[in-house]
């Protein structure tokens, strides 16, 4: 058992972990954070995507013990102060169906837009290629991410590469 401290959705949380506990099991089992879902347990499906120091990672492939001192954001953290632009657009466009992949997709897409505010369609597809969705055929997901990027850019032009 080792004590670690993480910044989870803006709050400091201390927990005791065994060395082989995954971040996913720590979040779901010990911290009551249920939006990262387990779809495969081996990094294939992306349903457990969380933001670790701003990067989209699969919580099932990371050991909780490695995250000591780091910042973690899950969909609970994104939703608690109202809907983000992405969430609003996903809602309005009726994008998700069963919704099981939604948390991972929203977090992966928001990480992409922070890093690359003006992505091409291919860049969106590449960034989300690790998030499996069996319902939507991805088309509405990709369309909506591009729509949000365009809208954000029109509001506040960001200098950077265009592709």
């Amino acid at each position, binding site marked *: 058992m080792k004590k670690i401290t993480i910044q989870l959705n803006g709050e400091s949380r201390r927990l005791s972990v065994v060395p082989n506990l995954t971040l996913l099991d720590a979040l779901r089992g010990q911290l009551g954070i249920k939006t990262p879902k387990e*779809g*495969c347990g*081996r990094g*294939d499906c992306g349903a457990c995507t969380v933001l670790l120091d701003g990067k989209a990672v699969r919580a099932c492939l990371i050991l909780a013990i490695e995250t000591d001192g780091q910042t973690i954001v899950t969909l609970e953290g994104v939703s608690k102060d109202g809907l983000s632009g992405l969430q609003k657009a996903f809602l309005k466009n009726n994008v998700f169906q069963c*919704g099981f992949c939604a948390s991972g997709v929203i977090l992966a897409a928001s990480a992409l837009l922070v890093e690359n505010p003006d992505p091409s369609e291919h860049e969106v597809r590449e960034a989300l290629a*690790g998030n499996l969705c*069996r*319902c939507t*055929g991805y088309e*509405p997901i990709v369309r909506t991410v591009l729509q949000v990027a365009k809208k954000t850019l029109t509001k506040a032009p960001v200098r950077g590469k265009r592709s």
Partner: protein
Amino acid sequence: MSKTCIIGKSPVRLDGLAKVTGAAQYVDDLDFGPGLLHAAVVESTHAHALIKKVHTAAAEKHPGVVHVVTGKDCPHMFGLYMKDRYIFAQDRVRFVGEQIAAVIAETPEAALRAAKLVKVTYVPLPKVLSLGDALKKDATLLHPDLAKYEKPPWFFPRPGTNIAHWRKTRKGDVDKAFKNASFILEDTYTVPRYAHCPIETHAVTGLFDLSGRLTLWASSQSPFAQRNVMANALKPFGLSHKDIRIITPFVGGGFGGKAGVSMEIIGAVLAIVMKGRPVKLHWTREQEFYNTSQRQGVIARIKMGVSKGGRITALEHTLHWDAGASAEYGANVVNAVGLSATGPYRVPNVKIDSVCVYTNMPPCGAYRGFGYSEFHFGLESHITRIAKAIGMDPVKFRKLNAIKEGDTLAYGAEMNPGDMSQCIDRVAKELRWGKKDKPSSRNRAIGKSLCCFWKAPAMPPNASSAAYLKFNEDGSLNLMVSGMELGQGFLTVMAQVASEVLTVPVTKIRVETPDTDRNSYEWQTVGSHVTWSCGNAVRAAAEEVKDKLIATVARAKRLKAADLYLEGECVKSRKKKDVAIPFHEFVIDGIMRPDGRFVGGPIQGTGMFMPEFTSALGDPETSQGGHPNVHYTVGCAGVIVEIDKETGKLQVLNASLAVDAGKVINRDLLNGQIVGGIVQGLATALYEDIRYDSNGRLLNPNFTDYKIPTTLDCPVKLVPMAVETPQPDGPFGARGVGEHTMIAAAPMIADAIEDAVGIRLKTMPLTAEKIALAMRGIEYDDVKGDNLGFCFRGKPCDYPFDVGS
């Protein structure tokens, strides 16, 4: 059809906010506190063996283990249609992965570790891993007691063989028609097994409380069917229907895999054994592949004859299905195909034999399309080939033979309304049919194709739906139904139906996922039938509520009910313009009369729907005389593909689909079904390639080796289209579309490959590897090896279809 307000619009999904915020809960998200126990299952390592002994002592001693359950604890059989399945294996195992025992422990880790300590002594039996072995004379039998199994009256098993069901359809005189045909084509097509791959795996938590009440939280498409199957199977435990409650929170994808009953009944037994403590069973991704249900593999021989003018005159369609170790649900897939394997065409002379065969492979069941995707692969490939062979454009050929309202179906009933011709025209236009497109480089080739599809819900003739609506003080509504929200948008569509009748906006209607104690009955959410069936029930409930609203105002205000109508959440009068009484003023508390007395009371309504015109009791030898299907939905789909001639890699440039939805209730949701369905269908054609070794062990039960599409594997352009020929008995004219959208995918890829590079592939999947091999003149069947996705190992052309009659 009168003008509608909210029908046909795309309001925001009722469950949209819950899903984008993460508030939506799935079974594994529910908390049961520190008392929760966890279970792990001990699985067979043999495809076919007798169980001599199950050694549980070491597992029982493992720290944290509370109990070990084996087949001795519950010798009961179950099944949705035919009761041929055990909750835990009894004297024998019938597939690799079959559950033999379960370990219940304080933690998932302890359960898993202890499950590995359970040792099973087997006496191996001959494995039945090929259809040939299963059907030969003196074959090893999987179910020697087949004659004793309970089954519905429209199933025809053959005791003493491995045939679980044989559906025969006979119409006209096929032999004579073939004699007179001007052209005949005969060939064999094979379709392997497929896995559903919902991103959420099956999960169930059960609690058998100290009062003897069993509650299950299950990831399920069929809470009521499950309760019924469990109540029947678990009667020996003293349970009746009222003692079992099934709560289904959101489901993370179903596609048929969460229909009927599979692992949930194990959860029920574990809960009963651990009275007083909740027990959770959660399938791993591997288990999701081999121990729920798969889509059946099939080998099909098609012989089709046409007249000089290009009219189909005769069809002989023989299908042998690899049902796996149990056919409790799969036999109905076989049945559905046996009735409908003409496809959406007018065929005067028909002979269909659809044969369900037990094998020592994992059990199969419902999968989006319910057998229709499988038989359309061969049939639609065949249609294109015949059209080309007689020198007719495949589009013209399909329009010439398209089935129309009033035509006689293979089993004798009449075809319902539906405009396939218009669907064909819409797709042909979108694909610029007849125009040759230029490839992007010399090394590539472009191919186009267009295929048709149809499907009817496959269900018992008395499958029914019910709905219950009640008002709240502020004029908002709760609508209780038990169709399952699988992602298709069922809750929203039901709210739209109620809203249309009652003028209450959908934002003021709450519809939640089922709870068998609190919600109205629904048979199952399968077969693309709930929009139609439950939609009718909701409409009836809303009409009852409407009548009560009007009657209450009429009584209180001494007005004629006939003059009253609903508008903008008010009861209004056509005669007295000043009468406009908002619902919220009286739907609970009633209306005060001048003398201070009140009239009315809490307003609520119920509705039900059963298709009373159907019957499954056709003649077993011909299927004539019954009316087994409620209606068919027809449509058309096509693609433009580009193929790299070197590597065989295929890219879909355009995938277009038009379906006759009767009436589009929600455009966004319809588009979601079409786009998602096309991609799921294309995946079965292009990527998903299940493999078993020669011992019947599944080799690729994960997303690394069993490829489902990612964002990078989709068509460049997807075009969803709808035609609206009203279904007379559907809510506002609607009929179902959910499964139909993936049915044409495989043949349209096969046809497009032939159009592009001149190769005809007849064995699915149609991978780049197969295309590249074929382009080098190498027959896939010569190099395919032993690890196949299907219970058939030889060359399709050598397969012996003749197994008697």
